[in-house]
């Protein structure tokens, strides 16, 4: 018996409950040494909870973790690291105001002198052919570089199991390829990799085995190389994938929403300025803005929605109105509604009821107030209408926004803006962290709104989403917008290059953006 190769890690009946939810329900699976194993599931399927238990951030209520054949108790991340588990987080566990070196030192348990540590870091960088300057402050780095810190931090511990939580959601296609190269090299040394994602193409490219979670339970196992993305998706969501229904031939109206030389000076440490942004969205059109996070998307949304007015006034136009100097209320009265990326505390106030959350943006257009007095009854009725029309799962208009699941709150926010019947709707990351059912409903609602003649601008990091949804798109990189591409004519490679995929080579990037601007 002892001659058998033992699995690197085996989970037996892992169960974890939170108030009101069973996050993991008797989850069992194993990962072999050197195997790249995918953990697949929708948002809320229980993937993150599961890996937090493997990494010792929380403990299971029941079940057993078996490491190299021995049952173990992972008390905390330190114990996990000692065992040989490394982790790269989805939301990076980095310290913005500190150097790369300090960040890595914090992830190491032994106290090593700075120079020794730096030496070891350079060794790892060399072995895996990665580029990173140990003395840079994290806040000055790109998202890809930040991820590299996490990877180096994990690699320095010479892990036996590396957990990657949604690692590619912030990378360009080219960066993804580079990451996969690193991971394959690592697995050849015998290190197992637990790869968490919902991106099925990538899993098919990279992984040798997959465990599929749904509602906290294991619902299937497969070899991704023998599956199609559709078959895996259907296992993941437990039903048929809904396709967006779009009229085959679409007619577009006049230019409705125009940015013409929109330029915003950079603010603070972390802001990226906007440089001469130009685009045109026609009535009835869905226009997409692709790009890796942190390239000016937030600034663009704030400038377009009126949260940050700018000048000159005609840098942004809605029909014949020059609106760049107007505030959000003024623009909304002209028919421009917006949905920001962050739901909690930006798109909605989590501590307020849904009724109060309608007053936030719909008070004028839906006549929920006049002469400075709020009409509670009208607001409640409107909130009820949003809940009904967009199938928001909640106990009623009086429940707090914070009590809704991410997908339901997103549906509520989208519904609140769409029911105001906007001339122009700007949406950032419309389906970020939303389950497939809600995502399909939101996509359909956007397409339907466009078919009624509204101009729609979608800012998203999810290229698949934009390609499915948009008629035309442009790519934002370091605050500059590329030429406009027609969806259907553009290739993923072309878009990927525009996203700044030639990272690590500043000259190439600069040349590229120059080239794009010349168009």
């Amino acid at each position, binding site marked *: 018996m002892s001659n058998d190769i033992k699995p690197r890690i085996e989970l037996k009946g892992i169960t974890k409950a*939170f108030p009101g939810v069973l996050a993991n329900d008797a989850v069992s699976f194993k990962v072999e040494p050197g195997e790249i194993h995918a953990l697949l599931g929708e948002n809320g399927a229980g993937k993150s*909870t599961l890996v937090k238990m493997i990494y*010792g*951030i*929380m403990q299971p209520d029941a079940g057993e973790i078996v490491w190299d054949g021995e049952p173990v108790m992972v008390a*905390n*991340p*330190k114990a*996990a*690291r000692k065992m040989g588990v490394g982790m790269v*987080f989805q*939301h*990076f*566990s*980095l*310290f*913005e*105001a*500190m150097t790369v070196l*300090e960040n890595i*030192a*914090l*992830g190491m348990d032994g*106290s090593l002198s700075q120079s020794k540590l730096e030496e070891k870091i350079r060794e790892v960088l060399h072995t895996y052919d990665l580029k990173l300057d140990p003395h840079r402050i994290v806040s000055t780095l790109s998202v890809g570089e930040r991820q590299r810190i996490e990877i180096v931090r994990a690699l320095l511990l010479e892990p036996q199991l590396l957990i990657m939580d949604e690692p590619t959601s912030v990378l360009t296609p080219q960066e993804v390829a580079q990451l996969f190269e690193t991971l394959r090299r690592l697995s050849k040394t015998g290190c197992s990799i637990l790869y968490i994602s919902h991106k099925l193409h990538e899993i098919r490219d990279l992984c040798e085995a997959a465990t599929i979670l749904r509602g906290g339970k294991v619902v299937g196992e497969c070899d991704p190389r023998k599956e199609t993305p559709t078959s895996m998706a259907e296992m993941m969501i437990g039903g048929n994938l809904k396709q967006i229904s779009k009229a085959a031939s679409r007619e577009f109206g006049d230019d409705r929403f125009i940015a013409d030389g929109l330029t915003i000076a950079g*603010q*603070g*440490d972390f802001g990226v300025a906007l440089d001469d942004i130009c685009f045109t969205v026609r009535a009835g059109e869905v226009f997409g803005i692709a790009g890796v996070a942190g390239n000016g998307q937030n600034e663009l949304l704030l400038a377009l929605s009126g949260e940050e007015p700018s000048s000159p006034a005609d840098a942004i136009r809605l029909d014949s109105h020059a609106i760049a100097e107007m505030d959000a209320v003024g623009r909304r009265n002209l028919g421009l509604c917006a949905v920001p990326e962050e739901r909690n505390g930006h798109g909605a106030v989590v501590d307020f009821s849904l009724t109060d959350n309608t007053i936030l943006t719909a008070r004028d257009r839906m006549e929920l107030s006049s002469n400075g007095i709020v009409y509670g009854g009208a607001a409640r009725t409107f909130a009820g209408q949003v809940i009904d029309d967009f199938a928001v799962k909640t106990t009623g208009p009086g429940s707090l926004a914070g009590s809704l699941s991410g997908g339901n709150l997103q549906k509520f926010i989208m519904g609140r803006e769409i029911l105001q019947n906007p001339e122009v709707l700007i949406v950032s990351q419309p389906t970020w962290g939303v389950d497939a059912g809600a995502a399909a409903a939101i996509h359909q609602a956007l397409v339907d709104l466009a078919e009624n003649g509204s101009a729609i601008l979608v800012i998203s990091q999810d290229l698949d989403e934009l390609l499915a949804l948009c008629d035309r798109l442009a790519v934002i990189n370091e605050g500059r917008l590329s030429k406009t591409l027609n969806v259907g004519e553009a290739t993923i490679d072309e878009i990927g290059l525009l996203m700044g995929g030639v990272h690590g080579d500043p000259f190439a990037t600069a040349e590229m953006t120059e080239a794009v601007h010349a168009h």
Partner: protein
Amino acid sequence: MTESLLIPIIMTIVGAATPILLAALGELVVEKSGVLNLGLEGMMLIGAVTGFAVTATTGYAPLGVVAAMIAAAASAGLFGFLTLTLTANQVATGLALTIFGIGLSALAGENYVGQTVDVFGSVFPAALAEHPVLRVIFGYSPLVYVSLLLVAAVSWFLRKSRAGLILRAVGESDLSAHSIGYSVIGVRYMAVLFGGAMAGIAGCFYSLVLTPMWAEQLTAGRGWIALALVVFAGWRPMRLLLGAYLFGAVMTLELHAKAAGFSLVAPEFLAAMPYLATIAVLAIISARKTGKSLAPACLGKPFKPSS
């Protein structure tokens, strides 16, 4: 000239600066860990009264200082329990601690009003400590030298030590620190207790060294000035030293102007000077670094790990 005027002035400046330096140094460490404790004034008063009472009872000042540190740290522990364990609002809890400290110290010190204690002795031989010129270096309370050593120690701790790195990390991003396995709450408790102990020393500097006696609200808002000083220093210990002595000078102005019979402006204006100066300094500091903040990113925010 120098002996009669300059030396007393320098010595009063050091005297006025030391307690706010001590209190601000403690608060700096607390804030670096991401916690804002506005209860500085209250903790200082608790320290002041405890130090005085214990010294008056035992006749031994170092014991008074230790008792002051323990008492003020205990009150800081109460603040920590409310804000860290029970995630209460830090601003409100700090205010409550100040109000509590004012009341409690007045209550506890009632029987000590009007009493005196022996002034803290000097560490140096009288030949140096009482020398007409050299006393400007050797003639201070031991707590003054302790405060200078502590500035150096805290500065080294934050910049060079691993524990300091962890403390800064916790203040910079509590969620990140938590996810790589550091005990955010544990680190913050330690910082808050340290801040309390420092406020305790600062408090008994008033009751044992400067006055030396006990009176209600002895610290007269200096705790708030210490809070402002942390902002002024941009959360750096060495600049704190500079700021404290600058403020010491402003406060000394009042005393010496009064003593010199300086009558061009009302004495009330001079009494208001330190507070006006604080506002002016805050305005200059805050306005200059628009957009870019030196404050720890998590300052004042309760730590709430997502499930």
